[in-house]
């Protein structure tokens, strides 16, 4: 076989590559205080199976950043987003986060990572002391566990335990009305799936004590085939099924369970169903699946929320996701906090963020609050309803009661040894 040898080309290419590397090393330390724009770094997942998480997070952020910049930016400084892919690998998330701060001169981090990536970025924030807003991780421990607590990290996302309290109380009402005693669960086998399911079951049993879990399934995250899980549940013959599968996994599951006619045999409670990503993708959406709201422009049923959803749709030609509103909220909070502190300094913004209450299209009462004690978002719209296969998909949402949430959350924290 003939070999093509082009040493000249290869050497040039290599030198160019080395050169590019050297340039990035030699970039002098960006003088922060004088900088006109303020750079906000955002590590997220833009490739692979959950690339949608990254793209819809980015869309949510950009929509708000444009508004903030048009209104003068953060304390007079225009926001410049630096968004980078971590490929869903925690070590890359940590590296990218460090690079964003140390090299690109980002003064604030929006951590739009999922699962373990969020904990990796959290450690970077701990190390560098930079202001960090977690926007996608809903794992309760991230903010509830005092061991994780650092003064410069906040969460502007839902929290698993809130969902479970509302979901549990909603399901218990229906269970009592319909006499659903035997339950099965089917959730992805990773921290979010396990914790959320355990919490949900706890509250379900609390509100309806005679309930029994007769079958548990734990498919792997991103498992392509759920046949064995579907049939296992059919064997157990439960009266109701709970699942916190999400995204493509949930739609696969629905398609596969559909041909076994599973949905006609039991009541199904799928917390992540009422998100446009799943609602618009599933072609044969069964009627009457109970779901928690993720993002839906008809709930809260306010003109502000509908307008936000429409503006997003107009700009990106797709509906917002749960991740979109969580990321948009981060920017809204930043803008308000910076106004309150009259500064773009991370420490001052962090100070202003604690306990900050802002107007928000996503609030249960038109506002959301950054709770001071554990620096996580509360007061966002949270509720459950049943699906129909066309718009508005979830016609009636039964709102969760934040007073009950707070009471039970405090109790839960105590039981976990967090307080």
């Amino acid at each position, binding site marked *: 076989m003939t*070999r*093509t040898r*082009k*040493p000249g080309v*290869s050497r040039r*290419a*290599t030198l160019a*590559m*080395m050169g*590019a*590397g050297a340039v*990035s*090393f*030699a*970039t002098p*330390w960006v003088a922060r205080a004088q900088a006109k724009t303020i750079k906000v770094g955002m590590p997220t997942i*833009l*490739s692979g199976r959950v690339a949608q998480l990254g793209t819809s997070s980015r869309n949510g952020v950009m929509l708000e950043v444009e508004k903030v910049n048009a209104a003068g930016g953060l304390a007079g400084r225009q926001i410049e987003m630096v968004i*980078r*892919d971590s*490929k869903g*690998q*925690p*070590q*890359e998330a*940590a*590296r*990218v986060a*460090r*690079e964003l701060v*140390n*090299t690109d001169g980002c003064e604030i981090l929006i951590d739009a990572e999922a*699962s*373990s990536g969020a*904990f*990796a970025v959290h*450690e970077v924030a*701990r*190390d560098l002391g930079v202001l960090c807003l977690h926007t996608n991780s809903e*794992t309760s*421990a991230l903010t509830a*566990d005092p*061991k*994780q607590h650092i003064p410069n990290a906040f969460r502007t996302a839902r929290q698993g335990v809130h969902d479970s309290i509302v979901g549990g109380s909603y399901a218990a009402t229906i269970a009592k009305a319909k006499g659903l005693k035997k339950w099965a669960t089917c959730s992805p*086998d*990773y*921290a979010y799936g*396990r914790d959320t399911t355990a919490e949900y079951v706890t509250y379900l049993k609390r509100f309806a004590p005679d309930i029994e879990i007769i079958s548990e399934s734990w498919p792997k*995250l991103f498992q392509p085939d759920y046949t064995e899980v579907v049939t296992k549940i059919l064997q157990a013959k439960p009266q109701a099924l709970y699942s916190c599968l999400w995204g493509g996994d949930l739609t696969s599951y629905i398609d596969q369970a559909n041909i076994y006619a599973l949905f006609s045999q039991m009541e199904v409670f799928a917390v992540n169903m009422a998100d446009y990503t799943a609602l618009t993708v599933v072609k044969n959406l069964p009627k009457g699946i109970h779901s928690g709201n993720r993002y839906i422009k008809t709930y809260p049923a306010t003109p502000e929320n509908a307008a936000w959803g429409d503006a997003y749709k107009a700009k990106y030609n797709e509906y917002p996701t749960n991740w979109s509103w969580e990321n948009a909220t981060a920017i809204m909070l930043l803008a308000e906090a910076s106004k309150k502190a009259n500064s773009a300094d991370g420490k001052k913004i962090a100070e202003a963020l604690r306990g900050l209450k802002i107007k928000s299209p996503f609030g249960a009462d038109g506002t959301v609050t950054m709770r001071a004690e554990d620096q996580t978002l509360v007061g966002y719209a949270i509720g459950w309803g049943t699906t129909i296969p066309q718009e508005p998909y979830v016609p009636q949402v039964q709102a969760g009661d934040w007073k009950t949430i707070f009471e039970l959350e405090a109790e839960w924290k105590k039981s976990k040894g967090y307080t």
Partner: protein
Amino acid sequence: MTELQAEQGVQALEVPHEAKTRRNRDALIALAVFVVLALLPTVFSSKLLLDFVIRCAAYGLFATSLNLLVGYTGLISFGHGMFFGLGAYGFGLMMQKTGVPVPVAFVATLGITFAVALVIGAICVRLKEIYFAFVTLAFQMLIHSTILSWVSLTGGDQGLRGGIPRPPFLGIDLSNQLHLYVASCALLVIGLFLMHQIAQSPFGYTLRMIRDNATRASFIGIDVWRAKLTIFVLAALFASTGGIIMALFVSGAYPEFAYWTISGEGIFINMLGGVTTFLGPMVGTVLLLILNDTVTRLTDYHGLVLGIVILFFAIGLRKGLMDFVVEWYAQRRSGGGERG
């Protein structure tokens, strides 16, 4: 290439004092490299550079140790990453749960790796060629599944949370980035030095002989199984050290560290840099990391770019960069030596 090495090997066997001078020279080079690396932060103040070198140390140790298997012994392991993960988890858990001093945890982690590698190696090295690759891959996935399932110990998919505590010892505080940098450089240089000694020792030439002709090796009385097992375990120890550095860098350990993609990256680094020279994997590490870091900055479609670069190496050059350079150099000088 291999004949040339074999010739050198004969020399090394026959003239012991020459081997000694060589070792001294290597030690001097290693010391000089370490001093240069350690002084680097005084010239460049970029924190990125420090991060970059720390990551190079982690991946470099890992990739070079893999080359001891792939390049020197002809054992293509698809599961070498399990020891990288084992190092990260072993060290992280030890620091989080027991609170022993860093050096103790370091040594204990290597001890655990030694034991695990001995058991897995004893099963694996009996198999040949592609089957060895498969069985190591299967073990890797088994360990990965175990890490995911054993939530109470490993934290499952979320990894070891809450950071890795690192109390200062002997005036070294590894939570200080500069200290971590110097420590990583030291581990890298010592690791490379030791691996080079292994590669140049009579045992190293035994390995090359096994790679080229295992039957002949066993005819002249070499216990092939034992030699393969020895290098498997030794390589695991260096990979584990790489994992420890990575765990310190990200202050945690994640299941991805024990996933087969890490092994895949190791192989890729080796192919990129070249497997016929000792420093090939190190060059490959630097190349891949620069490539990865620059491409992810520039585009979301880094898979596409990286893929095309790989194709350039695999189809265009058909060998790693160092192989190419060495061959080119040898052609120009018509028979020059191999030197890192």
